């Protein structure tokens, strides 16, 4: 393999890949030398570290199906960039925030249309759950803008409320299926995001009464305790969630890892 910086600047084809994936494709096609691939593959600057790499940010932003975590990460970057004294950087951030918002708004419109078109009760419940979950995510994305965050979370609650009574639906489902379904945990999550702790606690208690060993509910109960700074309660419910989810977890799954994070247990190693 040739080495030296000069080699990196002049590939045999004149083509210089911009991304790691492009470098791999170019190497396999024989368009670039190994040195260029290695250089591109190991020179990774994390997207969330300054100085910001606008190209990397754009590559991420251009992906329509971004997961929530990545979207929140990008929004964190944009929230800092809008205060940049460089007007172009600030404009880039503001336009990007608008682009994310428009993308979410378009999906909201699509999901609303799906709800309107869904006929049977089961299909309708599924469509409403999808829409409410999306609105919850919409609110989370605007973590830095309290008014907008509350707005989208309230919309999520309204959508859940359109199931006549979200909690009642959950109870009905529990009675028939021995499960509280998806809507009650979602409603609890939204209430917790909104800071409606009392209401969330009541709903958790009601849901746990129906399905006491549901690990998702127990985890939400732990989260609710955490938000109220009840550390002992956190440990208790995490322990219960871990035990309830043990079969699926094989002892070192999500809940067990979380429990061990708090207690310094085996799964952390």
């Amino acid at each position: 393999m040739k080495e030296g910086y000069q080699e990196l600047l002049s590939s045999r084809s004149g083509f210089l890949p911009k991304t790691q994936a492009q470098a791999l494709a170019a190497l396999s096609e024989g368009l670039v030398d190994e040195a260029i691939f290695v250089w591109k593959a190991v020179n990774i600057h994390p997207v969330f570290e300054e100085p910001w790499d606008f190209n990397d940010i754009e590559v991420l932003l251009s992906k329509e199906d971004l997961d929530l975590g990545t979207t929140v990460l990008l929004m964190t970057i944009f929230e800092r960039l809008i205060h940049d004294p460089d007007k172009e950087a600030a404009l880039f951030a503001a336009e990007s925030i608008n682009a994310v918002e428009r993308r979410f708004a378009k999906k909201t419109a699509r999901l609303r249309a799906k709800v309107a078109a869904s006929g049977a009760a089961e299909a309708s419940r599924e469509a409403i759950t999808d829409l409410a979950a999306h609105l919850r995510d919409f609110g989370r994305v605007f973590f830095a803008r309290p008014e907008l965050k509350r707005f989208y979370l309230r919309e999520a609650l309204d959508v859940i409320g359109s199931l006549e009574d979200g909690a009642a639906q959950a109870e009905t489902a529990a009675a028939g299926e021995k499960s509280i379904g998806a809507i009650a945990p979602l409603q609890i999550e939204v209430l917790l995001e909104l800071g409606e702790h009392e209401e969330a606690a009541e709903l958790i208690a009601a849901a746990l009464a129906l399905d006491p060993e549901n690990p998702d509910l127990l985890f939400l109960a732990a989260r609710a305790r955490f938000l109220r700074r009840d550390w002992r309660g956190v440990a208790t419910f995490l322990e219960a969630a871990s035990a309830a989810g043990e079969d699926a977890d094989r002892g070192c799954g999500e809940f067990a890892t979380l429990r061990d994070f708090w207690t310094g247990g085996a799964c952390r190693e």
Partner: protein
Amino acid sequence: MPAVNERLRICLILEGSYPYVTGGVSAWVQDIIGGLPHIDFALFTISPQAGQSLRYKLPANVVEHRDIVLGDREGGRKGGKEAEASVVPVLEAHARMFAKSEPDIEAMIAGIPEGYDLTDEPARDRRYWRLIQTMNEVRNPAYPFADYFWAWESAHGMLFDALRGSPPEADIYHAISTGFAGLVALAARVRRHKPFLLTEHGLYHKEREIEIRKSSFIKGYQRDMWIKVYNRISRICYSEADGITALFEENRKKQIELGAAPERCAVIANGIDIDRFSSVRRKQRPGFHVGLVGRVVPIKDIKTFIAVAKMVLEAAPEARFYAIGPVDEDPEYHEECQALVESLRIRDRFEFTGRQDVLEYYAFLDLMLLTSIREAQPLVIMEGWAAGVPSISTKVGNAPEMLDYDERFLAPSKDAALIAERVLWVRAHPEEMAEINRRNRSKAMAGYDKRNMLSAFDRLYTGLARRDSVGVP
């Protein structure tokens, strides 16, 4: 130069704006045409689709209007001897670009006859085909040729549409942006030996770059290709135009950085009808009234305005807010904004007025807000000043300079909390604001009088038309 007693004729070349779309650029064009009645204007508009309805009544001195649709390949001449004449200068220009030297754009355009359509040429002439293959191999070898070809065709087809455009005869070709409008003006300059005047409100290539980067259907190297094409066109326009105007100094500097000769560049600020706006009789109302004059569209960031309203109302419940402007351009966004107002429970304090006579509002507003994420030189700030209403703005375009970089009236885009803080400061300092309002009014009269703007363009047109050969007057 027109013959004695003949009226000067200017061909305004416009892309995606006047007379089909309302907004800052279109209002400016209407002012220029209406304000210079001794000059004839011909319009050459470049549209995304045919049959759009006019949003402005054309003044009597608009003597001709031609419209072309980008992507409409009907009617262009193809093949024949003209094809042979065009190929050599096009290939030479590209060879120079590959060698990283400046292509001879004038020679290239001169080789492409007016009305001639180059789009199908790669399929007819082996030399064009080879050129595209070479570009694929050099610039994007990791992608299949078929993919590259169609990307190249879509990016360059619209350039060819602009280059074959046949604008009305005129003494000066005045493009109101770089891009396709600039190319049409440049082609007219080369083929008809008439001056090419370029006016930019924003920076065209920057605006297109932002659109491309946010677009979901242009990705990867295609995105880079489109951005390069637009940047290259702007550079060509800057280097070839006989006169270039910007609205403010910051943009003039950017034009020079991209190749415009400083001696050909001038700043001609936007202007307003000072008499009209300063005639407003202020009738202050009880409470504290805050307005935003603008279309209800995402670029104006009305949601941030609503968030500001909510925050201000917590400290000043007597305040009222008005979004003064058309709501029909983006109905979905308007609905979202209405739902946000409803959800924040400020419906009784926040009003979407729709399109209104702004003078009625300038009579009682205590403050204007501009929450836009992008602006050039916002007229509403000057209008408010002339009427006696101060402004707080986001740090966009020329707004910071207009507001003397005074942080009491500026905030970053989307920073609702800081904007709300500024609003409350203005509310708490009425005496200081009275003095600032007096200063603002004088500043509007001295620096942003439409009559000054019109006479500057009148002089520029006359000077350009008088020259024997093209160059700055």
